[in-house]
């Protein structure tokens, strides 16, 4: 398949200089006159009945302006899939990061002191930290009385099982019986975290009945809804502004603490700022990557043909559902993987536990599930006596094949990613005895969401894109000028982008689900086309030529075939100024979900078919220190099908970052828990991110073709797929040297223990 068109010239993004020079202002840098500082009082037990909260000593402390508990805010339950939360603990605390009270004071130190003075009376309850234990009958319920919660009616739930999804295709019993080889394994992934380098920060200020909230969120419109819902305000009275965002990786999706700070600011009648510590960033947000238990069984023929797949997944929901209820269905799709399998039965559960809640982190469920699946694929290859790349080659989905839910694939380049990755890494070459190459394939959907944009041209010929999309560091919003410029025959540098403000741009789902370019990109193109039509109308008069004979190029509207006959766009804009408004609007309507047959599936929450699916293969060359179990990833080759690549520099950057994140998940990033569910390593010395010195050489290539169901010009999702297969590829390399490690992260200790067996 041909390499697609792509932009390779460097493009200086609007926020680039601010960020690299340190001039950029983040939320924690903001100060308002008279501003106070907020601190939270967290639960002292991971699970306890709340008998009483006495804030009198805290309120009496000099310098304290407000102390709030659930009694001081509207008694509203909220949650996207299950309304299982309140802003502050009401009757029960369910994890160590549950907020019992909040304080606003003159200094952070006074606020901290006041928080300590709050007296809380508890009746401790048994805490359940193991998701498999949580699902057993007789285990204490994390949410006693959950039947009374409002919830999405497609949710299948029972006891501590917050959401159950199944996939059934064919007859898995018959398939297993028919198979010549069966392999059954169990994999366990620890919880991990998004770990944005900027811990979240929020500033709230009221003016009359209206509140402005500056917050480090990936999803300003969803944050606005959360504030309005929980504080019972009209959305029109809430304005959310996002200063530069210091990374999110999904952890800053959804509504979190904006309402707490807004409520404090109202009670104190002063602006209030909250800045999280690193520990809080680990403990309190309901958006960590969930732990998984994956029991997986595959039946195959001796020639490598996959016949049947059975799997049972238990995902750790933590104490509240957040956006995790669709995880079981997505994880079920992930353990089937991009392979043809006639008989499938997957049963996936999301178990409430007394731990920090799970939520979307970059490609939720996929890296862990893919790590288990792809190591399992290598185990199947070993059992049938076949090279693992050859096994994948024989089973990977191609055009016309159908998924486990009978979605028929339109042209895709899954197989091409496999071939390109193994070619780039030199699979099969001789290596030192302590090195090996592991390969893993993965897939990931693009998500269709509503989105809109305005494009306007000013009298000086420059342009502004007004969008509700949110930049989270990936560059997707910063690259929107490329799309407008292409339509209008202008340079991207001629456009500024107004975003970050719910009072400015149209509603957008925010920086989540790799959706910005996919959806908002289409809206920007439509808005630019609208402006182009207006320019052509003006140019018709000036040039006395029919619109069909005109084109926009090089900053001019000109007659096709006679480029000397034309007019500068800037001149048209100047002429229009004060008379006609050059303002375009656009809202690309996304393609519907591909047809499929989910009749054998339960717990359907929209993941049963994948729109414009992306495919990925990563190959990792690793070195294992046999004496210590320390693994170094020396080289990664990443081949991706994301449809048409619009901005090669930006897309490559997403892959490099995703691979680095994937290596972290593979080797060093995982939370260790106490028996009662407290995180033991909630700090960066012992929650080990990979450093710049650890990241290997990464080769990136793009082998997809434009997808007719894709975003602008056939682009598919880019941001999430790059971290999907990396842990699996690393795992397969380790297995060749040290034996198979069935726990994630594959720490030196675990690799060493594997070698001792």
């Amino acid at each position, binding site marked *: 398949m041909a390499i697609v068109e792509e932009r390779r010239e460097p493009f200086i993004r609007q926020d680039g200089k601010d960020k690299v020079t340190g001039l950029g202002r983040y939320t924690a840098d903001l100060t308002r006159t008279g501003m106070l500082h907020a601190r939270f009082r967290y639960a002292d037990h991971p699970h306890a009945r709340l008998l009483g909260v006495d804030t009198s000593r805290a309120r009496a402390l000099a310098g304290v302006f407000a102390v709030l508990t659930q009694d001081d805010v509207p008694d509203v339950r909220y949650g996207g899939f299950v309304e299982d939360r309140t802003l502050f603990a009401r009757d029960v605390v369910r994890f160590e990061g549950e907020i019992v009270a909040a304080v606003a004071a003159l200094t952070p130190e006074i606020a901290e002191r006041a928080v300590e003075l709050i007296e809380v009376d508890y009746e401790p309850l048994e805490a359940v930290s193991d998701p498999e234990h949580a699902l057993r009958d007789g285990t204490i319920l994390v949410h006693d009385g959950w039947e009374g919660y409002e919830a999405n009616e497609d949710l299948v739930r029972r006891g501590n099982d917050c959401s159950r999804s199944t996939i059934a295709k064919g007859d898995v019993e018959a398939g297993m019986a028919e198979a010549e080889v069966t392999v059954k394994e169990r994999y366990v992934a620890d919880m991990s975290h998004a770990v944005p380098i900027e811990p979240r920060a929020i500033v709230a200020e009221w003016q009359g009945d209206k509140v402005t909230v500056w917050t480090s969120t990936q999803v300003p419109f969803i944050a606005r809804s959360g504030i309005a819902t929980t504080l019972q305000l009209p959305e029109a009275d809430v304005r959310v502004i996002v200063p530069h965002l210091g990374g999110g990786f999904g952890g800053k999706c959804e509504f979190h603490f904006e309402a707490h700070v807004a409520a404090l600011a109202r009670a104190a009648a002063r602006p209030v700022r909250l800045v999280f510590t690193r520990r809080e960033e680990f403990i309190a947000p309901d958006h960590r990557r969930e732990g998984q238990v994956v029991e997986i069984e595959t039946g195959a023929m001796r020639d490598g043909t996959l016949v049947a797949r059975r799997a049972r997944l238990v995902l750790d929901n933590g104490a509240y559902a957040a956006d995790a209820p669709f995880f079981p269905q997505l994880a079920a799709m992930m353990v089937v993987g991009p392979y043809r399998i006639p008989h499938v039965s997957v049963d996936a559960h999301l178990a409430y536990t007394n731990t920090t809640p799970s939520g979307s982190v970059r490609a939720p469920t996929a890296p862990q599930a893919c790590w288990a699946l792809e190591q399992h694929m290598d185990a199947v290859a070993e059992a049938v006596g076949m090279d693992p790349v050859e096994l994948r080659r024989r089973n990977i989905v191609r055009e016309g094949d159908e998924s486990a839910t009978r979605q028929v694939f339109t042209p895709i380049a899954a197989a091409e990613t496999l071939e390109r990755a193994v070619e780039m890494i030199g699979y099969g070459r001789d290596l030192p005895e302590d090195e090996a190459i592991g390969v893993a394939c993965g897939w990931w959907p693009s998500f269709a969401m509503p989105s809109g944009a305005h494009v306007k041209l000013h009298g000086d010929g420059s342009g502004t894109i007004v969008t509700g999309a949110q930049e989270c560091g990936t560059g997707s919003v910063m690259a929107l000028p490329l799309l407008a410029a292409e339509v209008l025959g202008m340079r991207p540098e001629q456009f500024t982008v107004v975003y970050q403000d719910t009072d400015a741009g149209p509603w957008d789902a925010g920086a989540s689900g790799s959706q910005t370019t996919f959806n908002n990109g289409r809206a920007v193109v439509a808005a630019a086309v609208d402006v182009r039509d207006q320019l052509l109308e003006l140019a018709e008069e000036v040039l006395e030529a029919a619109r069909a004979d005109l084109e926009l190029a090089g900053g001019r509207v000109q007659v096709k075939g006679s480029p000397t006959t034309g007019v500068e766009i800037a001149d048209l804009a100047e002429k229009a100024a004060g008379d006609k408004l050059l303002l375009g609007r656009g809202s690309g309507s996304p393609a519907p979900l591909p047809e499929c047959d989910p009749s054998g599936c339960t717990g359907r929450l929209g993941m049963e078919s994948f729109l414009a699916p992306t495919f990925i293969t990563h190959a990792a060359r690793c070195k294992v220190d046999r004496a210590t179990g320390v693994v170094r990833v020396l080289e990664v080759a990443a081949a991706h099908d994301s449809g048409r690549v619009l901005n090669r520099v930006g897309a490559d950057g997403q892959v490099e970052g995703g691979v680095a994140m994937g290596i972290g998940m593979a080797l060093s990033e995982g939370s260790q828990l106490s028996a009662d569910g407290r995180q033991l390593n909630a700090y960066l010395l012992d929650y080990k991110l990979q450093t710049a010195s650890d990241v290997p050489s990464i080769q990136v290539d793009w082998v997809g073709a434009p997808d007719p169901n894709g975003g602008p010009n056939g682009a598919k999702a880019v941001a999430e797929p790059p971290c999907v297969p990396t842990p699996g590829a690393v795992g397969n390399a380790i297995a060749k040297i040290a034996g198979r490690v069935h726990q994630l992260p594959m720490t*030196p200790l675990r690799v060493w223990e594997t070698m001792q067996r």
Partner: protein
Amino acid sequence: MSATYAAAATLEEALTAMRAGCRPVAGGTDLVVGARQGKSALPDALVAIHGLAGLHGIAELPGGGLRIGALVSHADLVDHRAVRSRYTALADASAIVGSHATRHVGTIGGNVMNASPAMETGGPLMCMGAEAVLASAAGERRLGLDALLTGPGSTAARPDELLVAIELPPPAAAAGSCYARLEYRRQMEIAVVGATCSVSLDGPRVAAALVAITALTPCIMRVPAAEAALAGSDGGAEAIRTAGDAAAAAAKPISDVRASAEYRRAMAAVIARRAIATAIARARDGSESVPIPASPALHGATD
């Protein structure tokens, strides 16, 4: 919050302040970070010593030793030719403390006086016979590292005493040394297991050896059994294995978020063997290459 903070212009000022109860601060990489993390509150009164000229710099001592001012940074140590060539284990250790930023701000004085059982420079200094020079209004005194370090976070220095320098005796002829650490990643790492070896050779045989283990006991400590296994040996695999096993036997490992006790003990032997083998190799070929990827400055340095 610290109640008072004053920057001393002279050693006398600093010592007077310490006598009045002030605690010293130099790079602040342990003190300030520890306070921010809630490990221990900042002292009520701080005296900053970064301006004390006499505490900066590395000087050759008459007779071939080295005097390292307490304010010398880890980066300075790594860049110093004599440290690399004659006290190589100290260069190994200094090259892997924290990150580039930590190494440029953090000082050897702070590293030693913080007295962490996991500190990088402690083992090398102990195996090189270093003495801590402690000053107070009453005068100076010297303590060997093993006498100075009395427990996790505690030293034999009195509250009014300030570490002003570390003095290293000249190395023996045909000597080599190495500090090795178990590393889960290449920067921002803390020793889970560390080991130091300093050897001198008499022809093909090991004349004398000093071995210390780091992060395996409440104080960094020498391992006499390992030293005995090496002294007089041919420095071959068998002697190194025996010495490594002795290091593991001397360890009192714990289980925590960083490792299990069993793994720590096993790694004590592995890392000790590596430190010993490299020290012997360096003694044999006079090599001073410090194989630490975190320090491009080191690899780039050719002077």
